[in-house]
Structures are given as structure tokens and as C-alpha cells.
């Protein structure tokens, strides 16, 4: 599994997300709190077909973490990419590794 380094974790403010362009693919990275935990999902909102998920709101439901799309608020599981509103919809999730503060993603 090859990981691509993206940025230092300090570039992602706790409680927010950012978007990275990795090998031509838009990947959304989320840092739910101030610890060194980061999740990666496709940046494209599959409903609106727009690259916006990194700008959504991180939320917790049933002890799991989700990102609510900034457009129409559908929620996607940060670990699996499954959509809470529509079980037939799922987006890709990617493994993340943090080494010495550097965030790396494997496509």
C-alpha cells in the first residue's frame, strides 16, 4: 500500500476538513478533534455532483462520526463512506497514516 504525503496535520484545524488533490483525485480529509486522528473520503457529494464534502460539518451519531454535506446535509460515515440517509449510496474512504505530523493517504 503506497501512501502519498499531503500536508502537516497542523494545516487542518480541529473540527474541520480540507481537500487534497492526490493523483488527480479530490480527497477530503477530516480532523474531528485536536488529536492526531484524520479520515479521508471522496470530496464529491454524490447527490449534487459537486466537490464540496471537505467543507461540511463533522458530526457524531450513534457513537460514529459522519460528515454532513454542506449542500443538502446528507451524512456520510467517516470510516466507511456509507450514507446515513440512503443505504444504496456510499462514497470511497481511504486509509490515512500520520508520521511525525505528516498526513499521508493511500488511494
Amino acid at each position, binding site marked *: 500500500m503506497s501512501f502519498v504525503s*499531503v*500536508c502537516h496535520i497542523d*494545516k*487542518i*484545524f*480541529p*473540527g*474541520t476538513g*480540507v*481537500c*487534497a*488533490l*492526490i493523483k488527480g483525485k*479530490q480527497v477530503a*480529509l477530516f480532523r*474531528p*478533534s485536536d488529536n492526531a486522528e484524520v479520515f479521508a473520503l471522496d470530496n*464529491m457529494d454524490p447527490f*449534487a*455532483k*459537486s*466537490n*464540496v464534502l471537505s*467543507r*461540511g*460539518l*463533522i*458530526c*457524531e*451519531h450513534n*457513537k460514529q*462520526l459522519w460528515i*454532513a454535506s*454542506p*449542500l443538502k*446535509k446528507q*451524512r456520510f460515515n467517516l470510516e466507511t463512506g456509507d450514507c446515513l440517509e440512503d443505504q444504496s449510496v456510499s462514497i470511497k474512504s481511504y486509509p490515512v497514516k500520520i508520521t511525525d505530523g505528516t498526513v499521508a493517504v493511500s488511494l
Partner: protein
Amino acid sequence: MKKIIVVGNGMVGHHFIDQLLASDSEFEITTFSEEAHLAYDRVHLSSYFTDNSVEALMLTNEQYYDDNGVRYLVNDRVVAIDKTLKCIHTQNGVTASYDSLVIATGSFPFVPPIPGNDNEHCHVYRTIEDLDAIRNSAKDAQIGVVVGGGLLGLEAGKALVDLGLKTHVVEFAPRLMAVQLCSEGGGLLRGKIEELGVEVHTEKNTQSITQGESCRYRMNFADGSFLETDLILFSAGIRPQDKLARDSQIEIGERGGIVINDYCQTSEPDIYAIGECALWQGKIFGLVAPGYSMAKVAAKHIDGHIDKQFLGADMSTKLKLLGVDVASIGDAHGVSDGCKTYQFLDGVNGVYKKLVVNSSGDRLLGAIMVGDASDYGQWLQLYLNDMPLSQGPEYLLLPDADEGSSSSAMGVDALPDSASICSCFDVTKGQIREAVQAGACSMADIKSCTKASTGCGGCSALTTQVLNSELEKQGVEVSTDICAHFAYSRQELFDIIRVKKIQSYDALLSEYGSGGGCEICKPAVGSILASLWNDYVLDDAHIGLQDTNDIFLGNMQKDGTYSVVPRVPGGEITPDKLIAIGQVAKQFDLYTKVTGGQRIDLFGAQLHELPIIWQQLIDAGFETGHAYGKSLRTVKSCVGSTWCRFGVQDSVGMAIDLENRYKGLRAPHKIKFGVSGCTRECAEAQSKDIGIIATENGWGLYVCGNGGMRPRHADLFATDLDDQTLVKYIDRVLMFYVRTADRLQRTSVWMENLDGGLDYLKEVVIDDKLNIAAELESDMQNVVANYQCEWKTTINDEKRLQRFKQFINTDELDSNISYVRERGQRRPATEVEKISTIELVTEA
């Protein structure tokens, strides 16, 4: 088309017309009124002295009748009916023919035959004209007397108190409200009213009115005593206005009233009588609800339906008289055979309740309540539906001994579907249940689809209970908790944050919540923190709370780009600033559109462009317009007295001042203002959360209006305000809204759900009933003092600016965004257009 003539355009006459308009058949309707105004609300007549507005009382208007093809003649009295030719003649010589005639002439006030009752400052209390006359007489007066201590008399007493007069009530009977109340209840009511400074004189028989010594008049009583006063108001009962029918040889009851059958037909089958002029089985119904029922029956019958009949009406009433709750149900005096009574007297809190039950003690026959009428709705249902009392009657009377269980000892679930919940609009429990099944899930929904609780509002508590119970049955959990992370409502969270001076979401969550927070509670708490402390919303502690638009200080569009809206206070803009906006739009190729709030929206800005665009706008003298926030949006204005030949005040100047004062105020939802320079209302202020309309004497304040999906006319809140008072009231209204509304609740819905509604809001804001006005003002002052242009702060903050780019690891742009040009500007390409663009490129 069948010709219908309605004689009299009062509450009942108008309701009849509404019923006809709602039917599937078409009618040619003509209505006559001897008054200058079309139908208005006589039940709340005394509000004319506080609101000073005829409009607020109006139940209809010329426009509505014009739109629905209803002909109307005001200031003209119908004087004769020609039953043979089936036509009527008016005082002014108008003749009109009819197929069906409806007499809805109402009643007139009874003036006791006392010598001197025709003096200049002796009045009755029935029409707007009467009220104008009363007000004129009150101008140089100190003392006023109401003759009559019944319902209407006490209502008139309130009017005199509102006019600032030392008020006396003179009653012939030994107690107040002799028809409804027993001596204990009457005595308690008297005590409460006297506490308010109104003097009550019972068992006084006025014999003459002569010239006074210290006042205009002296009233001489049979017992030798006298009372001096400047103004006398007769409110000693009503008499049916049956003269027209009498002159036309239509059957009249012995003691007056036009005799009607169960279809509201008089002795002439083509002629109907409804409302207070009608006599059914020897009874006159002096309340509006039975009048509405008659209107419904007559309309149905004229439309050819014979299934609906008028079968009498319940005369139970609940009123607030001079601020005292009074209610009477059924056989309040306990005159039924074998009945028993139970009484409860709380001398400390001033509460009196009496129950009349049948001989076996398991059915409620009647009741009286003074000082606390909160059980009225429940008890009325027990009475109307002849429901068995589950426990002994004494349990109904005792105050909540057992917290949590309702004192009424009856849930709404026990009511049959046929139970009438709203008597003004005849809405049953079954109809509310059907509305909930059809998807209604809030009081606002119920009000708009059934009209329940939109008349006198007396049934609002009961309607809410039915709604909640039906929702629960459907599995909808009726919880006021904001979400799973906080077991508090938004209002409770607001109070916690305010009182405990909590500064961040994390601090609140760790002490009062659980879990990680979600897309509901995070923005809600973010908004509360901003309302209270007005910190920079992109601060480290707050950034993760901000919703879609706030987090990048722009309105996100469907393709992930943003729209940019600079503030244009009051809609006033210099040519230079207009050019500056044009230059920015041109440079960044932004789609440009003028908004409804009198400013300019620039669409299609990408993340990395936002700071550059704002830098240029700020350099040109603009500030953020907060178009992205749940906050003050715009203050729309007309051009006002500076240019307009009709304007009476400087509406633009006021709009600019208000917009600059409240800009940046974060609230449960967006807030819009409008300021009009005269009553022509070109700024459409009555469709705004806060509407201001100039008058010759100052400003009229309207609150809680809305346009959009569910339009609502704003309610008149206060009139003739000077600038300072206007701002003071707005400060208080807005802060009270910010404190108490639910998340994402506009002021219109907030008002509709506010217990006590407009009157309560007035009490809080104008009378400072909760003693929080100073606090509300200082909270607002704090927000005003801590205003910052968020974009100015942002472009000067390197750390924040890092977030304004599409990718964290490269300066490339989002290749998915593509545009097509249309009407000279660009717009986002549709999915189909995106594909064809790609194909074109491939082929080339």
C-alpha cells in the same frame, strides 16, 4: 346566478359571506352596512385604544370583496323590505333585488331611561365611531364611569383605564357579572379589579344625571348617594336590532328578536336572520361563536343543503377582564335538578373555582372560574361531551397536588372525535387528528390547515395537547431537546450559556452535553455564542461549529462556488460604489443579480477568489452583508420624505441607522426589516420580521411578518413612536426573540407559538412584565458595541486565509466547475452540458 343580499356587515354578516364564497356554487352577493367600515373585530374592540389602529381590527377589506365579486355599500342603512317584489330600499335611495335575504343587523346597546342620559359626554360602547367619541370625551377628563358590571361593562372599563381615567363601575345587581357568577366568584372578581384601582359600586340604581360640581356630571343614586364624573359609558346589556324585520311584518319575539327556525329562516322562508338579532327557541345568543354557527347553517341552506341545522349553542365563556381570567361553563348557578356543588377558594392567590355536578357526582354540569381559568378547556370538554369523571369531582378542584399528573384528571385522548376544540371556527378533535395524519406537525401547520386557534385563541392550549398526543400516537417523539447531545431546548441552552457565561462549544458539551455533537447542536450553539458574545465566528474555538455558509462567509451555490453580497444599508448606494461592484464583478466574471433586499448578489466566486474580491470591496468602502448568516440581512426602504411627494418621514435615513445598528446580530434565523415613509407602504414593511411605517406623528412598529413560503402579515405592535422609543422596542423584541426562539425559527412562527402571542410580547416589551427589558437592551448594546466586519478581520488574518483554497497541497483549481454563457453572463453548466463539453474537446 342566485342573488343574495346581506343586511349588516358585522362579524357574523362577514362570516356568512365567507361561508358562501367557500361553497362550490356561485352567488351574486351584495352587503350593506350602516357603519363607515366593513366588518371588524368587535370582540377585541378595546385594543383600538392601545393599538390606535382600525386596520388591526379589520376582518376584511375592499380589496378582498372586490377580488371575490362581493358588492358592498357602506354608510347606508336598509330601511325597507318589499317582500312581494323581493327587493330592499336603503336610506340613500338604493334599491336592490334578492333571491335570498339575510338579516345580520346584530344588536344595539341598551341605555337605561335615566334623565340626562343624552348628555354630550354620555356614550355607548359598540362601534369604532363610539370609541372615537369616547376618546374625544376623555381628552379633558379625569374620571369615567361605566354603567353596567357585566361582561361588556368590564370590557368597557378596561377601555377607560387604558385611556388613563380614574374608572368606576356602577352595577344595579349586588355583584359583578351577575349572569355568570355566583356571589363568591363575583366578590373575588371585585377584589381583583379594585386592586387595579377601579372602584366598583354595586346595588346602585341611577336615578338622574345632573350637572356636577367637581366634574362635568353628577350621577344621583336611589339610596341618596352620588358620584361625580366627566364621562359616562352605558354598557348595561344589548337588545336585538330587529327594527327592519319588525317594520317588514316579519315575526318578532315578545321581548324582541327576529324569530328563526333551525335553518335560521324567519317567518318569510326567503329571509334569514343570523347573529344577535335572531331569536331561536326564545333565546338570543350574545356571543360570536353561535353567530358564526348560524352563518354556516344559513349559508348551507341557501346553497341547497338541508343536513345542517342550528340546534342552539353552548354559552360557556372564558375571558380576560381587566387582566383577570374569568370563565363560566354550562349551569354555573347550579339550578339543575338534584345537582351538587363543590367550591375552592384560595384567598391568598385570588383564585375561586366552583363545580356543579349531577346528583350521582359523575358528570360535570357547570363551572365557574375566577383568577385562574387554565382548566377551562378541559372542563368544557368534560361538560360538552357528557364525559364520566374518572375520580371524585373534588380532584378537579384541587391544585396540582401530584406534580406531573394533570389536575384536570383527564387526557385529551379521552375526548371523542366529535369534541369541538375550537368553537370560533367549529374545529373538532377529529379534524385536528386528520390534519396530523395528513402531515401537520406543528401548531403553525394546524392553524393554517384547520384555522383552529386562530380566532379568540382560547383553545390554543387544548389544541396543542391534541396535536402532541396525535403526534405521539404516530410515533413522532415530541421532545423539545435540541438533539441527542443535549437534553435541553434551544431556549434552555441559551439561558445556560448566558447565565454561566460559557464561551465555547467544548465547554458547554463537557459540562451539559454528551457525545461528540452534530450538525444540529453545533451551529445552534455557535449561533447562541455569537448572539451573546459576538466573537469572530472563524475563531479556533468556533470554526468547527459553523454551517455551510458561515464557515467561508459566503452563500454556497450548487456547484460549490459562493455568492458575494456586500452590505448596502437601506438600499442607498452611490454611483462610485455601484461602479466598484461592477468592476469587481467584471474582473472575476461573476454572475450579477439584484436581490429583493435592495442589494447586489455576485455569483460564482471560487474559494481562492473570495479574499481578493473582498479586499477590493472593502477598499471601495463596503462591509460584509451577512447574506450567509442567520442574522440581520437587509433593511429595505422606500425613498421617503426626502424625495417622495407623499413621504412623511425620512425612511431611508431610519433604514440606514437601523441596518447599521443591528448588522452582525446573530439570531435563530435570518431577520429582515422594512421601513416605509408613509402608509402607501412601498417598502412592504408588513411582510418583514420588523416593519416600520412612518406616520405624521412618528413611526408605527409592526413585528413578526414574513414573505416567502408561508406569508404572514406583521402585527401592529405600537404606534406614533419617536426614534428612541422605536429603537428601544426593536432592541427588546429582537433580543427576546434571540433568547426564546427555537433554532431556525423565523419570528413569524415564533410569534405564532409564543404562549399568549402578541399580547404577551407587548407585555414583555412595552410593560416589562418579566422585568428583563433593561437586560435585553444591554445585551443588544453589547452586540452593537462588539460589531466587526468579519471579512475585514479575515483578510487581515494569514492563518484564516489558508483555508480559502480548493486544495491543501496544490494551487490547482476544481476542474469540475464549468460554465456556459447565457444572456451575457455565465452560469453553472448542467451535467448534460458538462458531458457534451468534454466530448467536444475530445473530438477536437
